[in-house]
């Protein structure tokens, strides 16, 4: 039970950690100051939520575990984030497309996690839901602005959506831990809102004068710990301090 619960939490929380790290890379590199601040604000929200999740995991693990050991001392295959969130900040189109495809999902997920029978998960979700509502608004607005903007912005955001589309199906893949937690009323059955997800995404893309890709070819593996080549680089940077100076604190 505890192992399944921890694995289930990783499946949600690791997305926040890795996407937060990716957005953090943009600090000081945003296209203008307001967007720079917005992206790092979102990063901060995600880190805040992931801290709550990892503190809970650490309390379940007991012994010497704490939020830092959970965040920094796992190996690549022990992270259960989806492949979408580890994709690089290729250009602003990719940053927004990745954010949008994730935010619509996360908003639906966290909305339902509020009803979890696990009190701690429910409390984290209630706190986080207000924040992820802001995120999905931000990324949806940018999809509209870029799609319905200039010929150049339209083409770039369409390219990014097309390229990242391959990672959308994985959002709805369920692991054994997920299934065990759903059976107990702790986990959210994401397949219940899969149709709603693709409908919402498609509606906003249409508003933005963009095409919804119809490719049926999808990538998966992140939820089993099999990541793309980008993941190792993210972890190398993220874990550098803890690996070089074990147990250091600020």
């Amino acid at each position, binding site marked *: 039970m505890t192992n399944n619960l921890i694995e289930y939490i990783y499946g949600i929380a690791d997305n926040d950690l890795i996407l937060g790290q990716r957005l953090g890379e943009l600090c000081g590199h945003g296209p203008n100051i307001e967007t720079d601040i917005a992206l790092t604000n979102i990063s901060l929200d995600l880190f805040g939520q992931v801290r709550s999740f990892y503190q809970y995991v650490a309390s379940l693990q007991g012994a010497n575990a704490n939020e830092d050991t959970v965040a920094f001392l796992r190996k690549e295959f022990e992270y259960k984030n989806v492949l979408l969130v580890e994709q690089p900040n290729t250009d602003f189109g990719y940053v927004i497309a990745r954010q949008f495809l994730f935010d619509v999902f996360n908003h639906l997920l966290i909305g339902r996690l509020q009803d979890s029978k696990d009190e*701690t998960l429910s409390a984290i979700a209630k706190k986080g839901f207000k924040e992820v509502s802001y995120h999905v608004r931000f990324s949806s607005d940018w999809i509209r602005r870029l799609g319905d903007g200039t010929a150049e912005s339209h083409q770039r955001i369409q390219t990014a959506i097309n390229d990242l589309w391959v990672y959308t199906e994985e959002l709805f893949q369920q692991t054994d831990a997920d299934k065990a937690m759903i059976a107990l009323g702790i986990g959210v059955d994401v397949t219940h809102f899969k149709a709603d997800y693709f409908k919402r995404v498609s509606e906003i893309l249409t508003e933005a004068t963009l095409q919804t890709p119809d490719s049926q070819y999808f990538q998966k593996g992140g939820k089993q710990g099999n990541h793309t080549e980008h993941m190792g680089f993210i972890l190398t940077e993220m874990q550098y301090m803890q690996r070089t100076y074990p147990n250091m604190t600020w």
Partner: protein
Amino acid sequence: MEQEIDSTLYHILDEVADPEIPVLSVVQMGVVRKAQFVGTGVVVDITPTYSGCPAMDMMGDDIKKALQVAGYEAKVNLILSPAWSTDWITEKGRKALEGYGIAAPLSPEADKAVLLGNKRMVKCPQCGSTNTVMISQFGSTACKALFKCEDCLEPFDYFKCLK
């Protein structure tokens, strides 16, 4: 949601400032939910405004220090539920915000209208005009949005409504 704060402790905690908005105390901000004597010590429950608020650790430390100076050994718990709401900023706190140059949160409906519908309703804390426009939904901290007054041309922060 009523704050349950022992009156002796209230005065001590009301001196502990929010590190981001120093004119507001952690009590006026609604961050302190409970402060009571338990056994020989004091237990204080605090709740974050936003999950990622980097000021939380500092507020916890400052609360412990202030109580220690007053001779109390304090334990600070971070609680997530029920989630903080801008309704918990006290009336005194809202006035202090305005005085400091931050527009206080509007009602949820008005908040939506200004953040999404570009309605002009937020009052400029410098000149009082409501001829103001949003520049960015995300401001200098997670809890604020960036606005500009079209009359006095000053930019200012608006404290977003959170319910």
